[in-house]
Structures are given as C-alpha cells and as structure tokens.
C-alpha cells in the first residue's frame, strides 16, 4: 500500500505512568509479557500493509530507537520505504523540539513528500488496540473525505473525559468538542487520523504560521478544517482500545490479556500477530512444586512458587514458597523465597530479597517498584517486611 504513508507519534513522556517512564518514552514501556506498547501500533501497520512509516520520537528515545532498529520484526526493513525514526533536528534555518502533534508532522513534510503519497495515516504509539487501517482508508476513499477520524463508543458517563465528535447519521463530523461538560455524543476520538495529504499539507503550513496555535491535531487542525467546512468523517471502531496513560489503566490492560474472552484483547489471533524483537531466551522452566494459574509467562522464566493472575516477562524468576498474584514482573525480575507480591508492577532486573511482602489493596492503585524504590522501602522497614 504505497499510496498511504504512516506517521506514528512516539514522543509521549507518559507523565502519569510514574517510575515506568523515568528512563523511557511511554511507547517503549514493556507490555503483555513480551512486548512494548508501541508494538501494537507497529504491528497494526505491518498487518495493514502500511509499507512506509515514520516514527516521531522526542522524549528519551534511546530504548525506542534500539527496539525499532531496522524494523525487521515488523517486516519493515525495506529498500524503499520501511520504517524511519524521525527525531527533532536542526537545519540552516534553525531547529526546535516538536511543539505539538501537528508541528511534528509539519517538520517532517519533506519526509512524507519524498514518497508522494495520496494519504497520510497519523497514529500515536501509546494505545493498545488491534485495528486494520486498510478498512479506515477504504472508508476515507469511499466518502471522498479530507480527513477521517477513528472513533469508539465510550460509556456516556465517561464521555466528558474524551475528545467527542458530533456527527450526522452518515457519520459526517460537524463538531469536535474536547472534554465536553455536556456531551451530545459518545463517539470519542481515538487519535487515529487519515488525511488526504494535499489538504493536510496546506493546513499544516497555515497552522505553522499562526503564532497562537498549540500545533495540535485535536485542538487546531481539526477545528480549522471544520471551520472551512471540509469533509470530515468518523470511522467507527468496535474492538478493544485502551489508552494506557495511568498506572491503573496500564495494569488493567495487562490483566485484560488474561481475560481475553471478556475484554476482547487477545494475542492468540494468528492473522493479527503482534510482533516484537524476540530475546531468543530458552523456554520457560516450571518447577515440580510450582503452581501457575491464569497467567501469561514468557520464555526464559523459572517458576518454583505460585503465580496467579500475573504477567511475567522474559527471564523472570519466582522462587519456592513465594506467591505472585495480580502482578506484572518485567524482564529479569527475581523474586526471592517466602515473598508475597499482590498487585505490584516490578520493573526490569529488580531483585526482591527473601521474605519480602508487598500487598496492595484491591481498591488501591497497583504499586510500581524498581530496585531504587524497593531499597528505599526496605530501608524504612528495616528488612523484608512491609
């Protein structure tokens, strides 16, 4: 599909994810036992046959750059097109950080122009969903739209937390309201857009010259297009979609993988595989006294204790007489003997000493710990107990 170039916004800092995004950008946060959040959108692109993709990075891009590499796991290591990581740059006329989502695309107009596409897909790398962008594009072409925005029905009582699109029966958009107090519709924007490139380019250039603009798609570009009565359509998506913007929602989305029949989020779909860099670890080893229930466990793990309703990334280890429940252990985490973890998110390579107890109440937000946080906790309690 060469007529459409994808632009993936991956600069998000993810402030509300706490320690999870201390060192890495939100799209690079580990997810689902094996993946990073951005793998879902990268795989959507490759499964939708988007062959040219620009990934716009800004905040702490090191891990993200290494993860994407030459794009091989997503079949994006191509001679023509493929994946390009686009970071902010300086040129003869100066240079600056991307000051908004629209500005990030504006500063890379020359990147898109070299492929001379008819359409541009703009997505963001911090949402968990499985979507065929081809269907979105088909509707865009059929309705001869200037822009098509993917929407999802949200519960009415939550609608005021989202950007809401008001549409006619034929899904033509006549109004966009950011977090409306009294929503007239429950169609929330998913931050997934397809634009006809010629139209978008004109608006981006116009917007770049407006000093008062915040250079944001939702706040500036879409309202400007609506003001000019351009053809904007909504595309209704009815699968699983989640913005993993908070620790609570990050934890929930991981748990949703364990309840895929209720949640609709599944990694088992052979025709819509989520691809990632594989660590090439040996298979997991389950000891003779182990109990593993209702969990996802990646290769390289060793389990001798009890694991329930949890997600274990590669090379995690749970020793004898320990219990890990409703928790997420990132790569290389070691849980010593006689320890109990309940509703805890343990970051990469953290070593939890013998006899540690961390129990977060079922109504509280799950706790994120790394070695530093853990050491602080242990120092305060003078040992293994909390």
């Amino acid at each position, binding site marked *: 599909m060469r007529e459409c170039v994808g632009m993936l916004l991956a600069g998000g800092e993810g402030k509300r994810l706490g320690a999870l995004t201390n060192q890495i950008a939100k799209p690079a946060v580990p997810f*689902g*036992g*094996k993946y990073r959040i951005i793998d879902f959108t990268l795989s959507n692109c490759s499964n939708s046959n988007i062959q040219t993709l620009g990934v716009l990075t800004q905040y702490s891009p090191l891990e993200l750059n290494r993860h994407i590499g030459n794009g*091989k*796991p997503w079949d994006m290591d191509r001679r023509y097109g493929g994946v390009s990581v686009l970071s902010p740059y300086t040129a003869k006329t100066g240079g600056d950080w991307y000051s908004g989502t629209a500005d990030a695309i504006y500063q890379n107009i020359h990147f898109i122009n070299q492929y001379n596409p008819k359409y541009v897909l703009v997505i963001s790398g911090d949402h968990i969903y499985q979507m065929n962008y081809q269907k979105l594009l088909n509707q865009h072409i059929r309705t001869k739209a200037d822009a098509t925005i993917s929407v999802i029905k949200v519960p009415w009582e939550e609608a005021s937390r989202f950007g809401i699109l008001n549409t006619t029966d034929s899904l033509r958009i006549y109004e966009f309201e950011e977090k409306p107090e009294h929503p007239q519709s429950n169609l929330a924007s998913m931050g997934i857009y397809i634009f006809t490139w010629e139209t978008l380019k004109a608006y981006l250039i116009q917007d770049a010259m407006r000093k008062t603009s915040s250079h944001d798609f939702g706040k500036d570009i879409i309202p400007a297009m609506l003001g000019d009565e351009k053809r904007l359509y909504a595309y209704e998506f009815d699968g699983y979609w989640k913005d993993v913007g908070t620790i609570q929602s990050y934890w929930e989305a991981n748990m949703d993988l*364990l309840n895929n029949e209720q949640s609709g989020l599944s*990694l*088992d779909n052979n025709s819509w*595989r*989520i*691809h*990632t860099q*594989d660590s*090439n*670890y*040996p*298979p*997991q*080893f*389950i*000891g*003779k*006294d*182990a*109990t*593993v*229930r*209702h*969990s*996802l*466990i*990646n*290769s390289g793990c*060793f389990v001798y204790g009890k*694991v329930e309703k949890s*997600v*274990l990334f590669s090379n995690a280890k749970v020793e004898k007489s320990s219990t890990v429940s409703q928790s997420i252990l990132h790569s290389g985490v070691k849980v010593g003997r006689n320890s109990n973890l309940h509703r805890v998110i343990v970051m990469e390579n953290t070593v939890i000493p013998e006899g540690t107890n961390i129990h977060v109440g079922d109504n509280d937000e799950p706790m994120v710990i790394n070695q530093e946080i853990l050491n602080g906790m242990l120092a305060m309690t003078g040992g293994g107990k909390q």
Partner: protein
Amino acid sequence: MKTMMGLINLEHEHHVFNELTYFRTHASIPFAGRYRMIDFALSNMVNSGINEVAIFARSKYRSLSDHLGTGENWNLDRRNGGLYILPPDWNDPSDVSKGDLQFFHNNRDYFNRGKSDYVLISGSQFTANIDYDEAFKYHIDRGADVTLVTTVAEELREEHIPYFRICADDLGWVEDITNEQTNPLLFTGAYIINRSLLMELVDDCIAYNRDHFFVHGIKEKLADLRVVMYRYKGYGAFINSIESYYRHNMNLLIEDNYLELFFNPPFVKTKVSSNPPAKYYNPSSVKQSILANGCEVEGEVDKSILFRGVIVNEGAQIKNSIIMQRCTIEEDVYLENVILDKDVHVKKGQRIIGSKDKPYVVAKRSDI
C-alpha cells in the same frame, strides 16, 4: 588475527529416528521446546567468533533450509561470510569423488575463498554449549595439525556405539582412534584442522577413491599427522536415536542440566517466532516441565516438554512426554511416555501410553 571457518557435515552421521525423520533430515529434528538439533553446532560456532558456516546436506533438507533461512537468527546474514547450505554434486560426469568427499570436491570454492586459515568441522549430534574458541587457542598453542574435541561418557550406552574412541598420551597427542567399546573417551565429531592441510588430504582421499574424509584422511593417516585432543568437560549428550532423544530431552527437566545447556552465556540461538507468551488458564496444573511460547494450557502437564503453540484442553493429562509445535490435545486425553511430532491432533478421550524405554512416537500431522 587467526580465525576459523565452520563446516557442519551431516554426511556419515548414524541415526535411527524413524518417524521423526520421515519428513526431515536428522539435523532439523525439534529439540527442547523450541530448538532444532543443528542449533547447537551452529550456535557454538557463531558464539566462538566464526562468521562463515557451510552445511553439507544431502537429502530431506527442506525443513533445514526453512529453519536456517538467511542465517539472521545466528547473525549469519552478512556481506562477508555468512551461511551456505551446500549440495553434494553438480552432475559432473568426470567427478569420481564419493561420500563426503563429493561435497568437499564440488564445493572447493567455499574453502578456497574463505579468509580463515583454519576450519572447524562438526556434526550435529553432540548436543552441548561449547566454547570452541578455547579449543582453537589450544590448537594454535599446541602447534597441532588437527585438534579433536573429546568428552568422557559417564556411563556408556547404546547411543555411544557409533562414535570413535580416542587413545592419547599424557600430553594429549592422539595415538589411536578406535571403536573399542569399553573406552569412555569419545570423539564428539568436532575437530579443528588447518585449511591447507584439509584440502591436501581431500585431494589425497579422492586420488585413492576414498569415501569418508575423517576415516581415510585423518584416522588412517594418524602416524603422519600431529593430532591432539581437547577435552570438553561440560554437559553434553549424543543424540542419534529415538531412545537417546527422548532420554536427553527428559534429562533437561533436571534444572542443573537445563541451566548448563541453555543459560551459560552466550546462549544457543534458534529461529525466533512471534508467538505470544505461554498462557495458563484456571484451572491448569503444570509441574516440572519446559514450555515454549504460544502454548495454552488448561489441563495437567507433568515432567513434559511442550513446544511452541501446543494447546492442552481441560481435563487432558500429559506425563513424561514431548509434544511438538502446534499439537492440539483435546479434553480428557491421557498421554504418557509419548512423543508427538508437529501438528498432531489428539481427539477427545484418547489414551496413548508408551513405555519409558520405548516412547510411543506419532508422526507429523497425524489425527488420532
């Protein structure tokens, strides 16, 4: 810098794998949940700094070439060097070479163009995580023509019968290569040889109408060559029959063996897949087992090895078994001492029980 090039010679390897080799060469038999037998020889070479490897493969190598691809999983997709699967002949009517000499003769370019002065040759049946770089340093230090990698069998078994035994003096110089069955010092099939000498010996073997390079080129010329042995002391297994295959898979359920074979960096590498992490349902019971990604378990698994994408439904019980890729085990099935090759589908309520010494083997893509 002195370097080696690699050669994995699958010709002349004795094996009795029956059902498991109906559709594939023995080097591509799946092993330990996600590997193929050849991964050990190949990874050991790459991990020892070798960056060009050739494989002599005569037949049934579709699955082997599918597994190896461009060699990228072993970092062998290179501008310089890389991976070569070499066929035995060119239909050249003047070609008089036989056995593995046919491969050497018809693929001289590989050796002549190589940039290394030394060649590491191995088979695919000795399963171990060996650092050949140490053996290579030893080869150089001792000033040997040929260095044979050996190991001592703790207990001699049937699987050891086809392998040569080594007699050496106190300094490690090899005095005899025999079939003396009571000698536990075994030749692993891996040896290092100077490249120019290799080609010289190949020519000599062809001139005298020989058909087995190691036997005629090295064993019979022992008196004329400086052959030294390098003893490997870590965990290793010779796998050349269903029985040894089964037993050595089961041995990996002992943690120390598993750690030594797989968790000593640098790791053994294999073809990666996009399978999601293994999924355990409620209820499920998994004890002392090795599971690869993509598995979905609702039933009971005990002392078994499950390859990628195996589905075990509720009420099914699997004991002491090896279940290969994408097998589906329906409800209330009972399997004990069984090897299921890839894509086998076992229907509801079936019971299959093999014996400990002779596991029951089901060929690829069967429905039971």
